[in-house]
């Protein structure tokens, strides 16, 4: 059996681990257009601010490939999948055959067309190690930085650049920051927190026109900069699959074994792939590292012949900016319980159909996983003491039977 | 008001260099001695509430605590001690009877400590219990006066009902109610594992413990709590409690606060009512009445269970025992006045009764003199504190011993003598659920088993030293004992010679 994996990040690594759990013999080939051993993409901001050494950027120990008997083809772009021949074509025209193929191509930054952008010399996206290295190359003490996009990537970049004493302005078309994961109140708290670190926000507007060292916004303001970070959004890398005839909506569409619709023996996982969000009932891309790994792992097992399903996917995020932590999960459509101390601690629990569907914790995030488990395991709030849960996440809220099963019974159950 | 103020009995000493403010002491003290003060960021104490149970000392992870007697000194004399003064002050305030728990703290002679045990040298080999069998099995019950034969000439081996003990140590009566369910479970399981018996005391038998019936002695006391046919049938033997060493001549009183749901059901009395055991059995005003009760109980259980009569060691104990031996009882249990109690009037506990050593010696000799020692087995309790006390008791003539206080020590009791408060921090003498759970029977029973095994080892060592390899050869073997520092009268009563003789 020969497995070919396109990509070398969390989904790809998950795939390797999934395969190797059941197939110790088959050949595995990883093909990546980057030149690095697997590294953790979310760590680029930590690297940039000096919290992580380059060595510690590794997502797995350096002997990972050797231990798992994986052949690697780095710095190599795949340009085509040939499903009929069960091969892929790489950029030099060579073909590589596969029995099972994993497409873990991830996503790329989305940069909308903006007037005058070509004039800007120091403009960067912020998704790959190389992009982070480029930023580091360009940054200098006291540099003026314009960040376009007040999402996770833009703000993570801001946090990193604060270490360089950068004078930062963040511009976003949305009227609040982190709209994809926070509600309005939480956004406001976080915005205030970040502002207190000296970052300026200009929201509800966008760049009208760039010139070499400044940008004019649609609201008329002008922002001077030395460097521009473009963090407007991402797009999944779906072209290989769609061109080969696989089904693609926003992302690659798979069944719950991660097999690509319309392509035999081709699987897909990670940021290029859609998941079924159980909290909203919708297919969507959940561009999250844990999700990528687990999809990859499920795919790997299926590729190795062990029938496995990826269920219970939910959006979830654990992230912090300038020391203020957020943990969120699920969707916020439902009845909300909100508690805030008027400072930086904020809690929102959302229930619908007698289940916890989503939550936002900011500040005090201790033991948040207990909430996550309620969502993932569909535990009815009638089955637990929700008043206790409102106070704080605790096992005490569960029935004695469930506690016994979890704490006095057998092996922990990760799901 | 000052006249009603008593200085704290104890002082809690906290080494603040060691205290890490984990507050375990605070959480563990049912007397609410310790508390954390956020303003000071310090643990503080209310010394006056401390009973010196040592729970906090034992639980403190850094050893930051110690309890010591308050050094505040009254102008006491040898005659009017501080203790006497405080007691009078208390009574002047309350108008009530003083209550105490556990055995008397008074400095009465402990005859065990004035008796020495023999060992073999040269003329008779000592026996190594690790190499040779060393037997401690004991039967309790009536022995036949003549050996009967069957028509074919073989021996008729039928016997009156007996208790069979692998080790001549039983757990003495402590009622469910006075001690916790977990304490009872510990005792029951330990008795079962050891091949001996525990005793329900007068509080009935909890339904969960019928399974240990083969190792249970069920008690019938003057209050008759929890007594019904099923209860009598559940045990291996029935004990009629006529008296208790710590409080001869008086009954018992379990406050309503301890009569919670389970206790109430087990005792068959309403929740929250005081459980009062009358001083006498109101159907036993004489020895012939006792005989009637003995035979009533035997009738009820088809003569399958030995009947024990338990009495307190009082002045004419030998004559009383003789009467009991002739009244149909199979076993006499004698409880010495230094024995423990969950609650007793202080004056009674400290002043009524006689030491078990003298009572035992007198009873055993009296029954032999009358030729009726075979009619009954003798079990003694009331401050047998160690295996050597046990060996001495058996050599004086006991068939087996009852231990109460040492069993409680194994369960964690630190003899703070505050059982009557119901707030036992060790989960023993309490019914408060949060305190009761502090005694995990899994630990408790194991510790009891360990304790008795340890004693058994020591008993065997001492037996081996004496050249005795079976406990029956120790029973009544007073030649193996010598007195030390005893006067001739005491030696005569004990039936032993002085050391050096």
């Amino acid at each position, binding site marked *: 059996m020969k497995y070919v994996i396109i990509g070398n990040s969390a989904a790809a690594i998950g795939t390797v681990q999934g395969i190797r759990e059941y197939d110790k013999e088959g050949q595995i080939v990883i093909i990546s257009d980057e030149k690095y051993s697997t590294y953790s993409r979310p760590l680029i901001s930590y690297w940039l601010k000096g919290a992580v050494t380059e060595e510690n950027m590794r997502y797995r120990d350096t002997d990972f490939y050797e231990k798992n008997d994986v052949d690697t083809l780095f710095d190599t772009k795949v340009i085509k999948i040939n499903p009929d021949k069960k091969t892929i074509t790489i950029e030099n025209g060579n073909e590589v055959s596969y029995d099972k193929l994993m497409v873990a191509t991830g996503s790329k930054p989305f940069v909308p067309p903006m007037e005058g952008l070509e004039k800007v010399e120091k403009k960067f996206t912020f998704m790959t190690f190389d992009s982070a290295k480029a930023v580091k190359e360009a940054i200098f003490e006291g540099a003026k930085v314009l960040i376009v996009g007040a999402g996770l990537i833009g703000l993570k970049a801001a946090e990193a650049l604060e270490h360089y004493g950068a004078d930062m302005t963040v511009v976003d078309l949305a009227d609040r920051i982190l709209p994809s994961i926070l509600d309005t109140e939480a956004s406001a708290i976080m915005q205030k927190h970040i502002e207190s670190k000296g970052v300026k926000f200009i929201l509800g507007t966008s760049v009208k026109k760039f010139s070499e060292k400044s940008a004019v916004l649609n609201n008329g303001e002008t922002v001077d900069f030395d460097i521009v970070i473009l963090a407007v959004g991402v797009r999944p890398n779906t072209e290989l699959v769609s061109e080969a005839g696989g089904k693609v909506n926003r992302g690659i569409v798979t069944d719950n074994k991660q097999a690509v619709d319309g392509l035999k023996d081709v699987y897909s996982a990670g940021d290029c792939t859609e998941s079924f969000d159980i909290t909203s009932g919708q297919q969507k891309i959940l561009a999250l590292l844990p999700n990528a790994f687990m999809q990859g792992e499920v795919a790997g097992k299926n590729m190795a012949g062990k029938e496995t399903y990826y269920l219970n996917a939910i959006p979830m995020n654990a992230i*912090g900016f300038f020391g203020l932590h957020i*943990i969120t999960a699920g969707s916020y459509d439902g009845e909300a319980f909100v508690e805030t101390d008027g400072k930086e601690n904020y809690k929102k629990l959302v229930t619908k159909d007698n289940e916890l569907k989503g939550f936002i914790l900011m500040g005090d995030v201790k*033991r*948040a996983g207990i909430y996550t488990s309620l969502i993932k395991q569909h535990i009815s709030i009638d089955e637990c003491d929700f008043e206790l849960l409102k106070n704080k996440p605790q096992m005490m809220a569960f029935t004695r039977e469930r506690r016994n099963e979890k704490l006095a019974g057998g092996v*922990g*159950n990760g799901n | 008001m000052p006249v009603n103020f008593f200085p704290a009995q104890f002082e809690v000493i906290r080494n603040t260099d060691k205290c890490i*403010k984990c507050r375990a002491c605070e*959480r563990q003290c049912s007397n609410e001695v310790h508390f954390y003060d956020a303003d000071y960021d310090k643990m503080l104490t209310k010394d006056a509430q401390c009973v010196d149970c040592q729970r906090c000392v034992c639980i403190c*992870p850094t050893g930051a605590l110690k309890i010591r007697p308050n050094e505040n000194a009254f102008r006491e004399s040898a005659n009017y001690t501080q203790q006497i003064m405080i007691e009078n002050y208390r009574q002047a305030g309350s108008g009530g009877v003083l209550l105490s728990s556990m055995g008397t703290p008074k400095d009465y002679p402990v005859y065990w400590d004035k008796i020495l045990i023999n060992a073999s040298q040269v003329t008779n080999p000592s026996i190594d219990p690790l190499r040779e069998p060393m037997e401690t099995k004991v039967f309790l019950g009536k022995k036949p006066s003549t050996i009967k034969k069957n028509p074919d000439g073989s021996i008729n081996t039928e016997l009156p009902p007996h208790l069979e003990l692998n080790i001549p140590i039983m757990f003495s009566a402590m009622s469910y109610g006075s001690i916790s369910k977990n304490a009872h479970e510990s005792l029951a399981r330990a008795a079962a594992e050891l091949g001996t018996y525990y005793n329900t005391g007068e509080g009935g038998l909890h339904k969960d413990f019928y399974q240990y019936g083969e190792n249970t002695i069920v008690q019938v006391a003057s209050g008759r709590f929890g007594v019904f046919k099923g209860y009598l049938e559940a045990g291996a033997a029935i004990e009629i409690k006529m008296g208790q060493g710590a409080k001869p001549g008086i009954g018992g009183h379990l406050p309503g606060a301890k009569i919670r749901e389970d206790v109430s059901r087990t005792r068959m009395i309403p929740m929250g009512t005081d459980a009062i055991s009358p001083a006498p059995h109101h159907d036993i005003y004489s020895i012939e009445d006792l005989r009637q009760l003995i035979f009533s109980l035997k009738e009820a259980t088809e003569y399958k269970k030995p009947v024990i009569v338990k009495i307190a060691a009082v002045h004419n104990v030998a004559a009383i025992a003789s009467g009991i031996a002739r009244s149909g009882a199979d076993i006499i249990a004698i409880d010495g006045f230094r024995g423990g109690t969950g609650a007793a009037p202080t004056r009674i506990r400290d002043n009524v009764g006689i030491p078990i050593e003298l009572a035992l010696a007198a009873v055993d000799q009296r029954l032999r003199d009358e030729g009726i020692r075979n009619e009954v087995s003798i079990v003694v309790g009331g401050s047998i504190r160690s295996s050597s006390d046990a060996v001495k008791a058996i050599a004086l003539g006991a068939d087996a011993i009852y231990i109460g206080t040492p069993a409680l020590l194994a369960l964690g009791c630190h003899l703070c003598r505050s059982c009557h408060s119901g707030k036992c921090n060790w989960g023993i003498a309490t019914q408060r659920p949060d305190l009761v759970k502090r005694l995990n029977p899994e630990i408790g029973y194991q510790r009891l088993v360990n304790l008795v095994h340890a004693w058994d080892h020591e008993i065997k060592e001492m037996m081996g030293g004496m050249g005795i390899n079976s406990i029956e050869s120790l029973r009544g073997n007073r030649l193996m004992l010598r007195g030390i520092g005893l006067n001739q009268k005491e030696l005569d009563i004990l039936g032993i010679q002085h050391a050096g003789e």
Partner: protein
Amino acid sequence: MKRVYVNEDWCLGCHLCEYYCAFANSGETDMAKAFKLDKAPVPRITVEEGDGINFAVQCRHCKDAPCVKGCITGALSINNGVIEIDGSRCVGCYTCVLSCPYGCIVIDEKNGGKTITKCELCTRNSAGEPACVANCPNRAIVFEERGED
């Protein structure tokens, strides 16, 4: 594999397990010192308190551990069944806090929350056996084989 199990019937809520845990993992040899340095060490076990009910919770060492799968840096890994944290690689993103269904990933407040920490069954300190178990005064926490891997 031997695991830590709790029996809430016997948990007294004394919290000593937390202190012994923190101490065992503090690297100090004296408990008082361990807690009197600038910042107290953080326990990896949590005692929950309820109405007459207490119990301790710590890492269940899941076979199918979501914390390990979700870890963005690879700082969490499973070695011989024990889920270990490599503190030098943790960046304190708390994805594991988000993932752990038992709430057993502990934010290391001693270092200001820069990393997480967690129960490693005392396999990587000098305690030898789980300190919470060894020091539980009432055997409410036990370390034993119950027939699971």
